[in-house]
């Protein structure tokens, strides 16, 4: 739709310039000028959210490295900038300078596109996170009734990029990484979706804003504790951080699907990973911990606090746990998480019916 | 019962027996049945006029150690059918000392690259000749005396 509006406005400008006045000045009953105003606002919001996402990633990478250094009794990065704050910037510059190697035998187009397929959904995911409850500028770029579906759809796109990257590299380790990625996605996505559906049933809406509003009295983590556990584990698996870092699994498959990547393409994989960690933390905060709901502080602050707590938990999980074997992960996904999520679905359906009966 | 040629002792008190090379397999088999169940190592020694193969045995039950030696001109029966661990030790002995083991399943070089010229632990090995190794496209090592073709 955005593209259509964009083309329309360009066409409008051209025609206006040529003093041709036979185009209709209204579209869908509104004057074109209003559409253009909306367009500008939308573009600005998209850029803003993109920048916010990037800032969150930068901060997260910094915190990750510092926190990892902390728990490992090290100092961590402290050379670039005050306390090493600009380390990531330096790293990005280093990555950009590096030669961008595409292996001779790789599938060129797929190999080059794969990092963007992984990275784009992460940024798009940030578009539907309700960052605040201010009515006009709620920092939510697109607010429509099916934001959760949108989110889920984009979350499931990213593994496709990993698989493409792994298969196109023409390397046996990458191949194994891609295969593991595929198997792992199967294992965690079904329970994840079912546990999301339970939230939707309880809230009675697919909209993230409605889900947050529905948690005004009581956050969904209390009735949906099982669903929360399933979703949390699925999010860990989706980020492929330990204990579920099978597609990358440093000590077994060298670097899994990203073995052959170098330079900025590898950097994009890396940033996508951290971007998703931030996104997953916000999604968990929105779904189960009442998003912006909270006393005293404004809503945005609450959401960021909740998100930050989950990011730290993810980081702690990352640095402290070992890796499971691939069959153990599949066992966990199909034998435990799926039944648990179905039980959770039943509970929340019953709860929803009961509540509709009461009110 | 295979008789031994002569018997001495190491300085550390371990019994050493000399066995004719034709009987070495039979002798070791008997010792294995007798209780010397672990083969610690096989090695070869170059005495300039002849080669010797040395087997170090250990009994895990009685803690006894036994060194079996045999004089050879470069070929001796393999004991891989008695001990699986003998495989690598025999390959190493072939690699470094140049003693051939009959009936060995996979008698290739183990530490040096395949195609290396000479056996380094022989006393007449030319130390001044450098050999260069490189990895071929098929994943096998290439050896040459030319320093442009390897490292």
């Amino acid at each position, binding site marked *: 739709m955005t593209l259509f509006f964009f083309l329309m406005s360009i066409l409008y400008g051209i025609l206006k310039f040529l003093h041709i006045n036979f185009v209709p000045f209204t579209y869908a009953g509104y004057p074109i000028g209003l559409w253009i105003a909306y367009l500008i606002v939308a573009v600005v919001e998209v850029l803003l959210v993109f920048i916010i996402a990037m800032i969150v990633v930068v901060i997260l990478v910094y915190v990750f490295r510092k926190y*990892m250094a902390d*728990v*490992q*009794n090290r100092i961590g990065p402290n050379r670039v900038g005050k306390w090493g704050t600009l380390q990531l910037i330096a790293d990005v510059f280093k990555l950009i300078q590096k030669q961008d190697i595409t292996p001779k035998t790789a599938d060129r187009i797929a190999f080059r596109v794969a990092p963007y397929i992984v990275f784009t959904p992460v940024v798009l995911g940030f578009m539907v996170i309700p960052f605040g409850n201010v009515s006009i500028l709620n920092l939510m770029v697109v607010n429509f009734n099916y934001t959760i579906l949108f989110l889920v759809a984009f979350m499931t796109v990213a593994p496709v990029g990993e698989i493409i990257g792994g298969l196109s590299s023409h390397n*046996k*380790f990458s191949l*194994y990484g891609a295969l593991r990625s595929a198997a792992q996605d199967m294992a965690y996505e079904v329970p994840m979706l079912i546990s999301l559906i339970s939230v939707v049933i309880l809230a009675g809406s697919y909209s993230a804003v409605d889900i947050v509003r529905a948690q005004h009295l009581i956050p969904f983590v209390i009735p949906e504790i099982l669903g929360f556990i399933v979703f949390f584990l699925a999010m860990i698996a989706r980020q492929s951080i*330990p*204990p579920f*870092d099978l597609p990358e*699994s*440093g*000590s*077994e*498959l*060298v670097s899994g699907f990203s073995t052959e990547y170098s330079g900025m393409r590898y950097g994009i994989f890396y940033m996508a990973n951290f971007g998703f960690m931030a996104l997953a933390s916000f999604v968990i905060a929105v779904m189960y911990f009442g998003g912006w709901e909270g006393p005293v502080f404004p809503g945005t602050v609450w959401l960021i606090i909740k998100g930050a707590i989950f990011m730290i938990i993810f980081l702690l999980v*990352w*640095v*402290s*746990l*070992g*890796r*499971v*074997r*691939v*069959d*153990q992960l599949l066992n966990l996904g199909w034998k435990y998480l799926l039944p648990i999520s179905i039980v959770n679905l039943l509970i929340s359906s019953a709860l929803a019916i009961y509540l509709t009966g009461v009110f | 019962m295979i008789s031994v040629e002569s018997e001495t002792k*190491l*300085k*550390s008190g371990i019994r*050493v027996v000399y066995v004719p090379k034709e009987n070495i397999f039979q002798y070791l088999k008997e010792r294995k049945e007798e209780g010397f*169940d*672990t*083969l*610690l*190592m096989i*090695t070869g*020694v*170059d005495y300039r006029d002849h080669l010797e193969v*040395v087997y*170090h045995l250990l009994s*895990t039950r009685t*803690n006894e*150690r036994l060194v079996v030696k045999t004089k050879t001109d470069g070929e001796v029966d393999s004991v891989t059918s008695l*001990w*699986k*661990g003998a*495989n*690598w*030790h025999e390959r*190493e002995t072939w690699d*470094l000392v140049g003693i051939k083991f009959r009936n060995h399943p996979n008698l290739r*070089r*183990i*530490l*040096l690259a395949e195609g290396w010229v000479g056996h*380094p*632990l022989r006393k007449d*090995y030319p130390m001044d000749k450098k050999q260069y190794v490189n990895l071929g496209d098929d*994943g096998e090592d290439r050896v040459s005396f030319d320093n442009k073709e390897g490292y």
Partner: protein
Amino acid sequence: MEEKVIEVNFGPQHPSTHGVLRIKVKLDGEIIVDAQPIIGYLHRNAEKLSEMGTYPKALIYMDRLDYVAAMNMELGYVLAVENLMDVQVPERAQWIRMLVVELNRIASHLVWLGTHGLDMGMLTPFFYCWRERERILRIFDEITGSRLLYNYMSIGGVYSDVTPKALEMIKEWESDFVDKLNEIGSIFQKSYIYVARTKGVGKLSRDDIISYGVTGPMQRASGMKRDVRKDTPYLFYDRVNFEVPVREEGDVYARFLVRMEEMRQSAKIVSQVIEKMPEGEFYNKKYSKPMLVRLKANGESYVPTESPKGEFGIYIIGDGSSIPYRVRIRSPSFANLSSVPTMLKGYKIADLTASISSIDPVFGEVDR
């Protein structure tokens, strides 16, 4: 359907091969059909190098065998040479040797524990292991002047005495080492993820152990109570009180438990050594200064010792000159590593890293 098996080369450049091991693995999906280790990438022929110089010169090559437990390697060499030359070693020197060897055994096992954690995907315990090892290395720095390759043991004793400051450092170290070790160990041992990964993985039966000549912690983890320190005591191991840990399972988890317990036992030995160490000479004066280049020996000798990896010994032949005629190193990792094909067959790729690291191969020693 013939082309079901994929052949993958693990190494020599691979994050979890502990150096330069290369394993040709035939894989059917995730399952290992066949694994063939290929070694020799770190080959320097220490045996030939040792045969080219006098007896004391060969010691630096021994350091570079198992470079994470260099003291143990030195000990094996000097014991063999002393046996060959009938050297009397002063009592204090022997106690000092025991002290440094046991400390180094702990350091070696700590390296193993950290890298094993990395292979299992745990990033953090690695640093704790390094932190603890660093304290031991500081002690070595104080005693010997070096941190990794010491060249500390001489024929007839040791090169320098243990200083009071070093003793203080050791006392301070041992006061909280076991607690810290238990803390690190609990990160592994109590975690279900770790246990599920390692239980029943990389199994070696008793028969395989004997057939391959596997020694050391791997042997003890398969239910064989063998330890050279107990069976044929050298130094004063018969005068200290320690136990030999044994497990029956023969899998990676059992090896983990055995090594953890060995560290505790070694710490126990260290504290006993400090109590019992007498005053006196640390060096046999007969073999000092100019004698060092004129040491001559005749005969053959083999003295088994217990290195952190298993039974280590030097089979040495002297021909009456000051240069050893033949030096053969019985390296435990070499024999232990040869059991890899049996150990890996039928397990998954993820078990490969677990099993390989449970051998604790050090390639200076395997390739020599």
